[in-house]
């Protein structure tokens, strides 16, 4: 919940960057939605490992008869769900502040699902690293933001097309790019996660 409020505040602040220009606000709505979601994601991802590191519970989890791979997918799925909910929670705020045209809402939710999945797989991997380091707040965005540039580009482009109209029918190829990113990073990060949390 606190994450949604943070994202909503980010959306409000971003609208000040444009000023009270309804046309410009409507055009930038898709981009701002994803920037707000990206900033909120670092909060949510860092939080997802806080409980484990505070009481050394991560070591306890590793003692369970499961593999780190299972642990990764559990964490990543939970993060995905949480980011998706944050994204959905930001949509009403977006409507109020930027007045975009939400005629294709189901597709927008689909892009939200694909994009937040793209954020959560590498995000969970890096949050697992960052949670064990002192400079956690610096390290996570530093590592994650350059990596998710394709997600951000594709998601911004796709949602802007859905909000502003898509005369060339390009949304599909951007969704495909998001799918490809997820298809590469969900298995890869799952494989590498064991190396990150094991001693």
């Amino acid at each position, binding site marked *: 919940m606190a994450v949604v409020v943070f994202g909503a505040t980010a959306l409000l602040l971003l609208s000040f960057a444009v000023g009270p220009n309804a046309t410009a606000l409507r055009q930038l709505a898709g981009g701002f939605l994803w920037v707000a979601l990206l900033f909120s994601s670092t909060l949510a991802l860092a939080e997802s490992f806080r409980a484990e590191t505070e009481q050394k519970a991560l070591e306890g989890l590793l003692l369970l008869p499961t593999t780190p791979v299972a642990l990764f997918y559990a964490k990543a799925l939970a993060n995905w769900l949480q980011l998706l909910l944050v994204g959905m929670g930001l949509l009403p705020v977006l409507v109020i502040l930027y007045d975009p045209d939400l005629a294709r809402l189901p597709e927008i939710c689909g892009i939200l699902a694909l994009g937040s999945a793209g954020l959560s797989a*590498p995000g969970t*991997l*890096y949050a697992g*690293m960052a949670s*064990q*380091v*002192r*400079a956690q707040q*610096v*390290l996570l965005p*530093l*590592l994650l*933001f*350059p*990596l998710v*540039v*394709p997600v951000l*580009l*594709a998601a911004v*482009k796709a949602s802007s097309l859905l909000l502003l109209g898509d005369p060339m029918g390009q949304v599909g*190829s*951007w969704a495909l*790019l998001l799918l*490809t*990113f997820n298809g*590469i*990073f969900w298995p*890869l*990060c799952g494989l*590498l996660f064991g*190396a*990150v949390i094991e*001693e």
Partner: protein
Amino acid sequence: MGLDLLPRPNPRGPRIGLALIAIAVVLLAIGSYIGLFRAPPEHYMGEVQRIMYVHVPTAWNAMLALTVAFVCALVFLFKPSWKWDARLEAALEVGVILAFLLCVQGSIWAKPTWGVWWDWDPRLTTTAVMLAAFLGILALRRFVEDPIKRATWSAVGTIVAFADVPIVYFSVRWWNSLHQTQSTPETVDSAMVLPLRINAFGVLFLMVGFLMLRSWLAQRRLAQELAPPPETSRPSTSEERSLASTLELGGDAR
């Protein structure tokens, strides 16, 4: 596990590295001389095009250095040893510096040619994103104190960042494009190919030389970091010695 063995830096490493750098300087001097004074100016771009003789070799070698980093990271994860961690650190640093130089040279060339310092072209943007991603891994190495975690995590980060490079490239390419299409030796005059080739080998030798020097240095640092503390009964540092003498004096006074 290979991490139990302390790194043993090759004593001949710096000498070979320096020799390679010396060869590189000679090659770069020859190549740049031909490129600057012998090769014809380009038809459309004129003299500005001559930056190609350093720009293109830098681009090739930046890619190569980061590919070396990726290979080192893979080898480290499958067969952990400090040697590969040191090589990873060296390749990351050399690659990041070359990628940075690439962005700077590109900007110098873009201003007179395109009229802007920066443009959101696929190769340019990919290089910038790559630079940021690998700089993040170098920062990670600074933040993590435990050497084993540092080595493993930076190997993981390198693999993830390297896998991202083609995706970034394609996403930006769909998004926007302006950069020159790649030239091949067939489309370029032979008088331009020669200095380009010489400089490409020059930068290659330079890169390998710096790689060897840097990984030798990294191994020495690791050896120092991992060495067991000296078992001496006598206080070693001057601070401890002065503290001990003060305590003795205090005892005398009592």
